[in-house]
């Protein structure tokens, strides 16, 4: 095989890591470790950003890397941990679909994602175009995770990791979005988390649990 | 026929016809009754009986129920009037009648309907059990008999491409003698309708007051004196009219067609009388041979008539004859 330059090898490694983490989250049922996985994902994302920044020498990417670290590695995990401690939710109950089945499904999804990425990768001139498929896969896997989980908390984490996937996609496809957008998105994510925090407490005080089966009363079906 | 300002001769014919009808109707009724009596080995009443009856009724004082409305008193005149006018339309002697262009066969059916409606309304007016019962049965008979009659006429009209009765009979009379299967069907239908409409056996029995069976009589129960007289006369007229319609449609020969002269008229009268005599006999025969139907069965009887008429139409359209 042709020998790739180091940075590309690094990037591919990151991509692989992202995918791995996504699967790990899919299979993980302890919420605390979910949070940790999420933090790791953020770290990998930041690393990717850094490498890309170093490779392309685009200033704003450094900034966005810092931003990522600040928000997704430091702040949000901290917030989540705090919430977990306050709300006493450590475990998610048995997911709607058992782990192995979920895994299998995830595999299928990955294949599909790669198929989707084909037309894009052919066009992409970026260094890590192959990663685009992985980005899509991460997004869809996060989606799958949200579907299968029963605790509000883990659903939220799924939501956040989907965000990660998106950023990874942006990074791999286009070396990130314009600054304005990145800021805006980050802001939204932050606000979203705050709102969620409020939410958790409200739900908690209403149903004294974060189990989603309390939230199934509004429906058409009697 | 083209519109001609009716000349004196036509006017005369017209009046003559009407008067003749007025005069002959009770006589015809009497004749039928006589035949019935003979056929059932009874001593026949005088043929003039209907006249005497009518005169006697005219002499009497009229008695009206307390709650009889004006409608009750008007009805006899209306019924009588319509029957007379009908007699004026039907070509019994001559076909060139001034009144004819004013009312064709469809209007004739309408006339009969008018008479029937007024009769029934009058019967309901006093509000007796019998009256309403009679009215209901009469209308039941009517709403089946009327379309049947209409279809009968319609077939004839289609054959001769006109709805004007005289024109029809002229057409049928003047053209070469041919076999009309459609007319055969309609003739049967017409006979049934005639029996039903004139309250003859098997549908009704003019000579009974048995509430289970009577139709026509039930409606006249509250009438007396001159009103009753008019009603009786009117029903006699109706029988006569129906007979004449039958002649016009099925045995039109002998009627004075074309420009009427006194001679033609003079010739047509004996023919008419002959027809009436035969028809009366036939009617009496039918009545004696057939038994009275239950009222509930009357609709089936009339449905048959209706069916025959429609069959006649079908046959005509199919065979074009």
């Amino acid at each position, binding site marked *: 095989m042709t020998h790739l330059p180091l940075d590309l090898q690094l990037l591919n490694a990151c991509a692989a890591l992202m995918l791995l983490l996504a699967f790990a989250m899919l299979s993980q049922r302890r919420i605390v470790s979910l949070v940790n996985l999420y933090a790791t994902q953020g770290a990998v994302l930041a690393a990717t950003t850094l490498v890309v920044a170093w490779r392309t020498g685009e200033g704003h990417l450094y900034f966005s890397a810092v931003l990522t670290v600040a928000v997704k590695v430091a702040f949000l995990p901290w917030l989540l941990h705090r919430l977990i401690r306050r709300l006493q939710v450590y475990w998610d109950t048995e997911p709607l679909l058992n782990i192995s089945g979920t895994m299998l499904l995830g595999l299928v999804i990955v294949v599909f994602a790669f198929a989707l990425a084909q037309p894009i990768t052919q066009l992409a001139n970026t260094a890590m175009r192959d990663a685009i498929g992985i980005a899509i896969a991460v997004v869809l896997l996060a989606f799958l995770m949200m579907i299968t989980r029963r605790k509000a908390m883990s659903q939220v984490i799924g939501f956040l990791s989907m965000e990660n996937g998106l950023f990874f996609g942006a990074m791999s496809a286009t070396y990130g979005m314009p600054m304005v957008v990145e800021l805006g998105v980050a802001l939204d994510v932050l606000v979203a988390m705050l709102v969620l925090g409020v939410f958790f407490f409200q739900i908690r005080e209403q149903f004294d649990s974060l189990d989603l089966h309390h939230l199934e009363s509004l429906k058409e079906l009697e | 026929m083209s519109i001609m300002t009716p000349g004196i001769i036509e006017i005369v014919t017209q009046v003559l016809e009407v008067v003749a009808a007025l005069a002959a109707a009770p006589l015809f009724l009497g004749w039928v009754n006589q035949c019935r009596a003979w056929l059932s080995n009874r001593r026949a009443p005088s043929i003039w009986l209907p006249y005497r009856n009518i005169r006697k009724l005219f002499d009497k004082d009229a008695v009206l129920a307390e709650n009889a409305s004006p409608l009750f008193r008007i009805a006899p005149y209306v019924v009588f009037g319509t029957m007379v006018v009908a007699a004026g339309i039907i070509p019994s002697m001559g076909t060139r009648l001034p009144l004819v262009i004013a009312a064709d066969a469809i209007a004739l059916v309408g006339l009969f309907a008018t008479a029937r409606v007024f009769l029934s309304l009058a019967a309901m007016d006093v509000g007796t*059990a019998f009256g309403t019962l009679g009215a209901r049965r009469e*209308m039941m008979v009517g709403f089946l008999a009327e379309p049947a009659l209409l279809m009968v006429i319609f077939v004839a009209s289609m054959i001769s491409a006109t709805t004007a009765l005289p024109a029809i009979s002229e057409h049928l009379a003047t053209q070469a003698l041919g076999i009309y299967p459609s007319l055969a069907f309609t003739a049967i239908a017409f006979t049934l309708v005639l029996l039903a409409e004139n309250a003859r056996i098997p549908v009704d029995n003019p000579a009974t007051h048995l509430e289970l069976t009577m139709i026509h009589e039930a409606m006249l129960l509250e009438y007396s004196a001159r009103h009753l007289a008019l009603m009786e006369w009117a029903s006699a007229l109706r029988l006569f009219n129906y007979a004449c319609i039958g002649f016009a449609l099925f045995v039109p020969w002998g009627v004075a067609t074309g420009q009427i002269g006194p001679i033609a008229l003079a010739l047509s009268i004996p023919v008419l009388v002959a027809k009436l005599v035969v028809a009366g006999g036939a009617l009496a025969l039918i009545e004696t041979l057939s038994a009275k139907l239950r009222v509930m069965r009357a*609709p089936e009887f009339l449905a048959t008539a209706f069916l025959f008429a429609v069959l006649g139409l079908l046959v005509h359209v199919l065979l074009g004859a």
Partner: protein
Amino acid sequence: MTSLPISALSACLGVLGLWVLLGLGGLVRPMSVKLVGRTLFPLSALCSIALSVIAVLSLAVPAEHAVLPIGLPDLPMHVRLDALSSVFLLLLGASSAGISVFAAGYFRRGEGTPPGLMCLQYHLFLVSMGFILLADDAYAFMVAWETMAISSYFLVTTQHRIPEIRRAGFIYLLMAHVGAISVLLMFGVLQGGSWHFTFDAMRAAHLGPGWAAAAFLLALLGFGAKAGLVPMHVWLPEAHPAAPSPVSALMSGVMLKMAVYGMIRVTFDLLGTPVWWWGLVPLTVGLVSSLYGAVFAAVQTDMKRLLAYSSIENLGLAFTGFGLSVVFYGAGMRIPAALALAATLYHCLNHSFMKSLLFLGTGSVLHATGERNLGRLGGLIHRMPWVAWASLLGALAIAGLPPLNGFVSEWLLLQSFMFSDRIPHEFVNLLIPMSTAVVALAAALAGYVMVKFFGVIFLGQPRENSLASAHDCGLLERFGLVWLGLGCVALGLAPVQVLRALSHVTRELMGISLSQQGSPWWLLAPVPTRQASYGPLVFFLATALVVALTVLAVRLFYHQRVRRGPAWDCGFGGRTARMQDTAEGFGQPIRNIFQSFFSIERELPTPFDRAPHYRIAIADRIWRGLYQPLGRLVQRLADVVAVLQQGRISVYLLYSFGTLIVLLALALVS
């Protein structure tokens, strides 16, 4: 004819505007019966008369166009006044004049909508109908069409506190709306991709045969639903009894005709030359409806329901005539086509007078007795002679008895059937004459129905003691009744003049004017006199003369002594009002003969009953067999759909996920 000082079209619009103002006037003092009843309604009656006069004058003049400043950006509302519109405007004006006068005396304060508001709705109803007739583009037409439905709906639900009335209103508006949508689709076809919704554009557009047929059938569906043709008739017997009587009169007498107008307008004007077989559909539907309506009318026990069913019958006859004329026209037989069309129009005119008259009569009875059930009426001819004799006139007319108007249109219809064996299509020319039998049967049944209607309500003995206190209607009501009655007589005795007016329409639509070959003014001879002619005037005079002579003779040669005594009743004593036939009893023969039409449930008394009790309920098979299953089907579908919304967020996410995947796959393969 003389030409107007201003254009007839603007005059019509002016009248409509006046109506709107009068309606708004009601809002000034909504609760005041005096203002509404004594001022606004009489004025609006004057407007109606003005409208009918304009319509008559504008019959002969060529069509006028105008464009109103309102409407959609590219589609301002077009209006047009031609012969067809004029005839129906005449219908609207003439009959609404009588109805409005009657209404002036009719509306009283009480439960339900305040009179002022009702006045507004009533006039919006009138205006919308007028605008339908003037509309010359699809948008204007549809707006007017639906406004008519809404305003009449509000009038129907005046007594909205009564659940049955709310139900009736609901069914009515639902059917109206579905019908309107199909009319809308019909216009969608007609515009033929030209994106111009003016009728002119539609006249110009060339449709493929398939499209044209589709348009025709859609029109039949939409307008048929309004006309109450079977099986779309279910709303009619519900809505008509629910409404106040003047409104029932207006709906039955005028609104139903709008459907006929729409049908004629679309078929002969917009679609150009119809294909002959199209006509078979309305012909069949019309025949079925006429028979169906007549049979059901004969067994009703509610007087307004009876009239409603009789409306179904009459509209059925109208559509029969229409279908016949389509067949003839498509087959290239112009004169018969014109004749059939004239018969249709004539029948519409007649029915608007007769049926309005009868509905108003029932209104007065309702006011006087508070009873709609035939089983509790009777003998009213003594208490309320005006209403009774007016109703008698209407009843005789609608029963199709000469020399009144009902007979004329039937006569014309039968005359046009005379041609039906010359249609150049095997089997069709064999079948259509058959349908004459149905027409005849329906007509005869109408007689039965009317005898029942009049006899049970007005004749005999009162079936309830309360009826003794019944009072005759007021002055204004009498005006209304007499106006409509005179209309019936006039239409009956002067058919030649009416037909001359109608032949403007036939000339406009078919290029054929019904010739009166040299026949005098008193003789109706649309086809060669040799073939058929009818001179009601002579006819009437002859009958009158004979009757007069008879009376005279009786007076001359005999006495006229009259004694009043108890009814003889064949010698049975102790007769009570209960011994008369009830409405059920009178309908009994029809029930037996046409048993298969109804779904009947009876409660017969057993010989051992202490209090013997007989009840019979007659229901419409179509309602049971078509609409109820339909409702259940929708309900079931709704239940099925509801499964989607089952509250679990994971499932919802799954939907999004699935959608995403599917669409992505789609995008991938394409």
